[in-house]
């Protein structure tokens, strides 16, 4: 099933010509493809999966390998999960809500991804009931249990937070749960977040431009690699709580896989080696054809990512964030009119991304780092890292995805039966610290983000941005899954910053994002 060829896809590849697709060692797939923990399979050097926008490709730079016995693919914990459970190849090494729903249907909710520890709204809920997993099934969100007050990342004990936190709404029940909640014996804040992409990680974990002893946006000390003592990018997790791939794996082993004992050095090495060489990106567009054919496909496909410069700023005219060649703007011979039109749209989207200015306002850790509030800039200002659209510096900021009034909330009125699924917290910043620069002393949020680690008032709702690769394969988006498709990503920014995109601009931008 996983490697079953799709006739339609095969025909499309033949139409496009196979030269750019490495047909001899890529494996096209025709449909959904679930990797079970411990199934033992071959992971080829190139592996293609269809998705609604086109074709995703995974590229193992070090070549094909067998997954049997590999720590990333084996259920090394006690709950039957492996890392691959929540980082599925067909989903761009994340996990789409579509796949999650399929797994619920296929297994009657017994797949290990629904494990009580974090695959349920709360471990204390009846696990056989679908409603107990509503956040995972509706938004693709796993529970992240954060100790309160936060632990001191640089020493023993806890840090003294600059704010108080109250639970205003708890539809998932865990924050008010007597065993798991904020008032429990081990005070815990449960937030719900999307699994991040395990691919292109040399970019995410780079130690190049913008990574130094201090966080470039705040001046605070940077988390260091415990193995080397060197500063880290702090861009791995939504709240930057882990320093390196190794510490993340160790943390995930305990919190997600429920390991009985710590990972062995060999398991760590296997996972690290795999993660350092896997690249993921769209390689073909359903309408535009191969993204790698013809001139100027340097922005696309995982092979170009594998060959790209890691950790460099791309928000400039000498090295673009996403280097789409201007040749895409004009029809190229050998392509159909439809393909040329789509390529021109993707190119226009790239131009919008780099050059369409708008007023960026009231965004913590962006407007506060020397640009002023508001600042007239572009998408590429924040999403500036060459080839990924990540932030090159430690990248948490608050654009309003989890903080009210911008976060998505179900409207309350007598005619609407829908209930909001996300928790809501009230944050009250203490009088002896400066208020949040844009939200004041009282903040309502679905997820305090970085503030659950730093304890800082100004970090409330600040989330580490994610890479732009393989978006088409892994909806929904944002850390709280609040954008159900790529159009809703564009829509969020349009509303948030009053950009006033034209219909054509929205289409072009969505086509561009869907091709990355």
């Amino acid at each position: 099933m996983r490697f079953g060829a799709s006739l339609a896809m095969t025909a499309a590849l033949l139409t496009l010509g196979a030269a750019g697709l490495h047909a001899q060692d890529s494996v096209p797939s025709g449909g959904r493809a679930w990797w079970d923990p411990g199934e033992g399979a071959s992971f080829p050097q190139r592996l293609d999966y269809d998705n609604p926008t086109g074709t995703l490709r995974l590229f193992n730079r070090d070549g094909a390998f067998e997954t049997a016995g590999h720590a990333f693919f084996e259920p090394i914990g006690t709950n039957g999960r492996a890392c691959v459970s929540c980082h599925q190849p067909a989903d761009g090494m994340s996990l789409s809500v579509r796949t999650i729903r399929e797994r619920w249907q296929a297994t009657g909710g017994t797949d290990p991804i629904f494990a009580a520890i974090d695959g349920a709204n709360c471990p204390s809920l009846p696990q056989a009931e679908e409603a107990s997993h509503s956040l995972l099934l509706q938004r693709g969100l796993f529970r992240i249990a954060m100790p309160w007050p936060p632990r001191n990342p640089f020493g023993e004990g806890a840090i003294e937070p600059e704010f108080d936190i109250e639970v205003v709404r708890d539809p998932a029940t865990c924050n008010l749960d007597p065993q798991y909640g904020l008032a429990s014996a081990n005070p815990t804040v449960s937030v719900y977040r999307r699994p991040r992409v395990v691919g292109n990680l040399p970019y995410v974990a780079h130690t190049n431009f913008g990574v130094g002893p201090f966080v470039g946006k705040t001046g605070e000390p940077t988390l260091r690699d415990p193995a080397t003592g060197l500063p880290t990018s702090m861009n791995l997790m939504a709240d930057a709580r882990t320093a390196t791939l190794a510490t993340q794996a160790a943390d995930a082993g305990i919190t997600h896989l429920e390991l009985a004992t710590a990972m062995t050095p060999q398991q760590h090495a296997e996972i690290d080696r795999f993660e350092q060489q896997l690249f993921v990106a769209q390689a073909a567009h359903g309408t535009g054809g191969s993204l790698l054919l013809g001139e100027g496909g340097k922005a696309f496909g995982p092979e170009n990512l594998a060959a790209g410069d890691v950790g460099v700023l791309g928000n400039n005219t000498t090295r673009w964030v996403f280097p789409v060649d201007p040749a895409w703007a004009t029809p190229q011979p050998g392509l159909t009119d439809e393909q040329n039109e789509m390529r021109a749209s993707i190119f226009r989207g790239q131009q919008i991304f780099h050059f369409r200015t708008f007023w960026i306002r009231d965004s913590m850790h962006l407007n506060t780092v020397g640009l002023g509030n508001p600042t007239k800039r572009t998408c590429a200002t924040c999403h500036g890292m060459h080839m990924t659209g990540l932030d090159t510096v430690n990248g948490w900021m608050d654009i309003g995805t989890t903080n009210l009034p911008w976060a998505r909330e179900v409207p309350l009125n007598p005619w609407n039966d829908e209930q909001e699924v996300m928790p809501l917290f009230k944050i009250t910043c203490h009088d002896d610290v400066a208020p949040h620069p844009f939200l004041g002393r009282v903040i309502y949020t679905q997820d305090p983000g970085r503030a659950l680690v730093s304890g800082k008032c100004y970090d409330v709702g600040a989330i580490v941005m994610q890479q732009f690769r393989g978006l088409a394969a892994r909806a929904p988006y944002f850390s709280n899954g609040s954008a159900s498709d790529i159009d809703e990503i564009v829509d969020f920014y349009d509303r948030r910053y009053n950009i006033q995109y034209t219909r054509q601009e929205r289409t072009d931008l969505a086509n561009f994002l869907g091709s990355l």
Partner: protein
Amino acid sequence: MARNLATASLSLAALALAPSAAAQGRLAFVSCPIVRDTSSVPCWLSEYDGELYYLGIQTDVSAEFNPPWLGHMALVEGAPKAGNRICGGLVLDDVKVSVMPELSPECDTVLMAEERYELGFEPPRPPGPSGGRLAFSPPAAPPPPEPPFVAQTFDVYFPFETSVNFKTPNALQAVLAYAEAVGATRIEVTGHRAAVRLSDGTVLEEQPGMAARRAREVAGMFRGLIPTVERIDQVVDESAEPGDWRDRKVAITIYP
């Protein structure tokens, strides 16, 4: 509204009570910032006593001038440069702008671009992608120190009521370089709290505790950074005599 109140509070009598600022030909006032769009980058202005002052333009993180924030008042300190106007505002030399921490939602003026207020010069950084470099080059690093090494004190400055921020790491570069070069054994960080006499005679003091916070946060930045350092001492000077931006600082003494 607050901007109007601030403007209204200015009086000639008050000006007469402000000898230090007046003597230096400098203004110090708290007012709402104003942003004016242009065909390129926006420029930043502020109004005081019926006059519009030009503060600077949007560039990037490398700039000495960082634009203030709508939604907040700003403390503006600078010397008017007679006759020189940009974006319709009288230029202030050696301008220092501090964002006041409390929210002031009334500070919300965005002026549309007008041809007569175009910049008249090429901004060092456009509003989109750069030409491949930061708008401003960092200052050249000082030559490495030579023995005999001596204790040396470095001052690091802050905006009003602000401690460690995105600019602090750069400001510490010279300190760290010296400490590493001389094999520092002890670092003493003295945090200062300051006050400024505004042009209307009002004295604006930083919050009590600001000196301790600055000392604590800057000392924390050195922790574990230089292997030879055995001690990091914090000294707090909470006195707040009216002065200027040079009093909002930490003094860092590096002992070989």
